[in-house]
């Protein structure tokens, strides 16, 4: 039986006249206009004041005040800062303030060759680094107009799905901790550790792998990778059932998450929100399914959607996407072809170490690639992949040289953060923590 909060959530939808949308519904710009809550001025959800204006701002109304939250708050996933305008316990307007982790990675990307580029972009979304590497590599390959070998493509898919699982497990850990269920943190990190161990075995590093590179992947899968993967696939379902037992049916969990931070599909589309947030509103959109890249068109999997667009749906979608990824990994294990793990184009991939000792040309190619880098034909492309947080795009402009003229990453967390003021409005400050947590922003990607 649904709890009162859940009923409240659907009642709210009815009042706003925008119940859960079926996947067949298409949203026209007019509908988006109708559902829009994006006024400018004082009754909007966003506190549109600069930092210095906020300092001097005296809210009208005697119970109103402006409260600062973060950037060192443990629930803000790194260094997200929020300024909340509150009336008692209720949040009115709010403004996310970002930039505390800005290190100019897009500028740095212009100084690095395409081969070095992946070491840079992998540090953006540090909980799912392989996706940024993938987007960057796919964009570079599109500019080069090369096809990577079949095995490299399937290895990329395998790695990305393993990474999606570890990223969603990290979400389970941090989300639980934010809500106050410290047990979830221990469980989530334990399972994630298993996956990181496998990723370390394959790539050599637990994070920031620099494994997917333009032209293929850095190394072939090591001996025993299949058994290790299977062992995880066999162990994980029981552990995920533990999450279900601990949280999915638990009344306190429902109280904290259901009906909190509700958003609808039209709002999500208008704000450019993608990923589990968009799917939680019942809108089935997943780039893997709808605009397949790699070989996702040969894989059988489901796109999971929610019904109410609240925090609980976002939690449940991420939990079940782990199961869906396991299904994908099993199919990849069956279909993994033999062959080369990177393209045998001497201009793009460095020669194997052994060849350098016996071939002058190999030595020259090796030297050229690592000192100058390879030249990429002039042009510009935008390539997008579905990261655990939504659409992760990479826009590269090449001037024909060995370094990108401009490299831009469209981080899903950056755009998704815009939804926070709309979710927080008229909620309790205690719910703010739940909302931030289920948006699951990774600040490395937000600030870049």
């Amino acid at each position, binding site marked *: 039986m649904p709890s009162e909060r859940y009923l409240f959530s659907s009642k709210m939808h009815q009042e706003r006249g925008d119940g859960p949308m079926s996947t067949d519904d298409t949203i026209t*710009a007019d509908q*988006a206009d109708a559902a829009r809550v994006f006024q400018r001025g004082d009754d909007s959800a*966003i506190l*549109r004041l600069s930092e210095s204006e906020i300092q001097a701002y005296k809210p009208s109304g005697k119970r109103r005040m402006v409260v600062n939250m973060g950037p060192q708050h443990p629930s803000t996933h790194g260094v997200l800062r929020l300024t909340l305008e509150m009336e008692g316990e209720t949040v009115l307007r709010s403004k996310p303030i970002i*930039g505390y982790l*800005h290190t100019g990675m897009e500028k740095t990307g212009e100084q690095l060759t395409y081969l070095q580029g992946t070491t840079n972009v992998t540090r953006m979304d540090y909980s799912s680094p392989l996706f940024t590497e993938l987007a960057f590599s796919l964009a570079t390959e599109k500019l080069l107009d090369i096809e990577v070998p079949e095995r490299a493509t399937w290895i990329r898919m395998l790695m990305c799905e393993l990474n999606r699982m570890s990223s969603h497990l990290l979400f389970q850990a941090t989300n639980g901790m934010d809500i106050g269920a410290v047990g979830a943190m221990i469980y989530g990190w334990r399972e994630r550790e298993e996956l990181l161990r496998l990723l370390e075995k394959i790539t050599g590093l637990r994070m920031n792998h620099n494994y997917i590179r333009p032209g293929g992947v850095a190394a072939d899968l090591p001996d025993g990778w299949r058994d290790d993967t299977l062992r995880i696939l066999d162990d994980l379902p029981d552990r995920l059932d533990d999450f279900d037992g601990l949280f999915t049916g638990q009344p306190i969990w429902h109280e904290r998450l259901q009906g909190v931070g509700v958003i609808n599909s039209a709002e999500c589309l208008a*704000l*450019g929100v993608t990923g589990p947030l968009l799917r939680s509103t019942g809108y089935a959109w997943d780039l893997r399914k709808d605009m397949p890249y790699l070989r996702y068109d040969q894989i059988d999997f489901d796109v999971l959607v929610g019904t109410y667009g609240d925090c609980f749906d976002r939690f449940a979608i991420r939990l079940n996407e782990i199961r869906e990824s396991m299904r994908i990994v099993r199919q990849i294990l069956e279909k993994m072809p033999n062959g080369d793990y990177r393209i045998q184009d001497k201009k793009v991939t460095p020669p194997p170490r052994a060849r350098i000792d016996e071939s002058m040309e190999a030595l020259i190619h090796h030297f050229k690639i690592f000192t100058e880098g390879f030249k990429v034909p002039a042009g510009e492309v935008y390539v*997008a992949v579905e990261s655990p947080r939504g659409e992760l795009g990479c826009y590269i402009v090449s001037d024909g040289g060995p370094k990108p003229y401009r490299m831009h990453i*469209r981080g899903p967390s950056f755009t998704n953060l815009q939804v926070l003021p709309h979710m927080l409005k008229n909620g309790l400050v205690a719910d703010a923590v739940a909302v931030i947590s289920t948006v699951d922003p990774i600040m490395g990607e937000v600030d870049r």
Partner: protein
Amino acid sequence: MEEEKTSEDTSTATEGNIKIPSGEESLLYEVLTSSSRGQLVLHPTRDQYLDTIYQISKDGFAVCIDLTAVDYLENPERDIPSAISPERFEVVVNFLSHTKKERIRLRVQIPESDPVLPTVFDIYPGSEALEREVYDLFGIEFEGHPDLTRILMPETWDGHPLRKDYAVGEIPVQFKDAPGAG
């Protein structure tokens, strides 16, 4: 067969269902188009910019997925229709249609002397943070934006880091014979 061959010859590329018109003078939404690696690119002028985006939004492109800019200071050569005169800055906007499963990209030329562009906030509110980022890092202003302040850099920062004439900081490397070393 005959048709297929001719269409190949005139370099008609398709991505999704949209036929990318061939040749430089092709128009879509009354705007010059080009194809970049099979991806459809529109080249509106600044005056056409808002109107084009409005038409795109009415045409099912429900999401403004990305908005960024490029500073072509050191690389004025680029692949745009000959009728469009290249300027220093270029704002690049990506749209996504869920119903057609297509993407479309806009490239607008912005002169250095007057780096201003109308905001698309009223059509796509999701462009708010993206436009702030471009304002912050490139110094291109968006007219009518509700909150045009710096987003990534500190409020008091001087300059726009992603411009090509903004130098990259360097940390000097200390070698063996640096003063004070052994």
